[in-house]
């Protein structure tokens, strides 16, 4: 990583594609957010759209 811009790009990619990480890295990333109120699930619920809700219900 050359600078903060690259680090941010990498961090966003890991957060957005958490399912593509190996289980160990995935758990590590989830743990980093789990101690906060706005954890991974809360942020996901916060901005869920209508079509996603319907997909989850069906």
């Amino acid at each position: 990583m050359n600078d903060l811009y690259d680090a941010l790009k990498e961090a966003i990619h890991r957060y957005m594609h958490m399912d593509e990480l190996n289980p160990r890295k995935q758990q590590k990333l989830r743990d980093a957010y789990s101690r906060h109120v706005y954890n991974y699930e809360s942020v996901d619920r916060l901005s869920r759209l209508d079509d996603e809700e319907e997909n989850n219900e069906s």
Partner: protein
Amino acid sequence: MNRSKLFNAAIPGENLTVESRKWAWHKPPQYPNFDDAFEYFLEDVLADSERLNAARAMARNGFSALSLVQNLMIQSVAKGRITPDMTLLLAGPVYKTLTRMFDALGETYLTGYDSPQELQAYVEYMQSDAPKKPKKAKLSKSQEKEMQKITEEVSAEIPKGGLMGATKEDDMEIPMDKPSGSLVEQPVEELN
């Protein structure tokens, strides 16, 4: 090249003698807690219609969502709101929220992780004469209910009695020509 500038260059070690509290990022951050920092981004940045519209305008002109978030993070560090380490934690959730908001608003934007084919399609879309108006905003059922409730409250009839029902005739008129008695006094013309 201006030769006189050669003699004004920094002396090795000069950085160790200058004021270390000069810049915002040299001081403790305003939001050291993740939740407080994320709430700041939600309430003061993403919920601010002016800032969101500016972001939409930039996204429409080819700025990717990734560059928007990167710049927002760097700007927040520069203003002393968060630390550089905190940006790495916050970037993901802020990016996710911002892109979902763009999706809800029906914007066509670059994510920052686009493949060459996606970039090509975006360029063709930008060059085409197709109208660049955003699609209809997509709201969840709960959000639609909330919107309906707010609209009903706003359009509800104004009560006729009591303080809330005061007519316009009762409005107090503020004389504009007289001195207002405010803290800033109006300049008085000097008489010769």
